[in-house]
């Protein structure tokens, strides 16, 4: 299993990014129901691992970050989910 995606928060972030082009930090916080600090720390780990791409821009002169899933992150997510499914199937 993917060590990075064993965290429920990080798995939720990747799932939230799966169906979007770019997603803002605020929208991610809302979808994953995570506090700003927790989300930021987990996003940084995903960005460092190359699973998520980050873009910084200015909106109304305020800095804002938006994120999207990389090809590597998508592949890791699909493999991780397949392993979770086989674990659940194996137990039942």
């Amino acid at each position: 299993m993917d060590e990075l995606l064993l965290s429920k928060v990080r798995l939720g972030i990747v799932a939230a990014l799966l169906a979007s082009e770019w997603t803002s930090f605020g929208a991610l916080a809302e979808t994953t129901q995570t506090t700003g600090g927790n989300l930021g720390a987990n996003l940084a780990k995903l960005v460092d691992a190359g699973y998520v791409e980050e873009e910084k821009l200015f909106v109304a002169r305020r800095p804002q970050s938006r994120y999207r899933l990389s090809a590597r992150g998508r592949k890791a997510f699909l493999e991780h989910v397949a392993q979770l499914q086989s674990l659940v199937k194996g137990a039942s």
Partner: protein
Amino acid sequence: MNSSEAREHLEMAERIVAASTRELSLRYAAPFFIAWGLASGTVCLIFQLIERGLVPATATWASGGLLAAAVIFSIVYARRKARCGAGLTFLQREFLNVLWIAMGVAFVSNAGGWNIFPTFGLSAIYTIAASIVLFYIGLHENRRALLGGIVLLASLVVANFMPSVVGYVLAAGFYLGYAGFGVAELMARE
């Protein structure tokens, strides 16, 4: 990780993915529907009033101005939204493609087919295109859009049997079905 934790993680991921791929949230696009519903409805109204001799034929220019205003509003609003950087889901992107295809086909039919579709037939083309757009949204668990599409199509059928007030009926369809959907979408998400 044990199987119950794995199940919990899977359910959470499925819930998040399903929310962004199943339901087509269009709150961001609601102002487009309101602007174009009002503009299209008013154009129908103006042509009906001209036909009945209630306003002079020069009022045709007002309809051109209204449509131009709707175009300018759409461009300005879309640029402002794009600057926010929030991005779209792939489903929202697909919806926009359906919207542009339907409206583009309607526009070309309108601009190039005035001998085939005389008088209010040209407005009816937009009624059909707009209802296709709303039915597409309706397919993604949005009942307000389904209702809007039904209202638009109903206005077409009713107008067919009321030849003296076709413009009024088509205008009502755009106001209630298209602009009304935009208002309902704004209210539902707040």
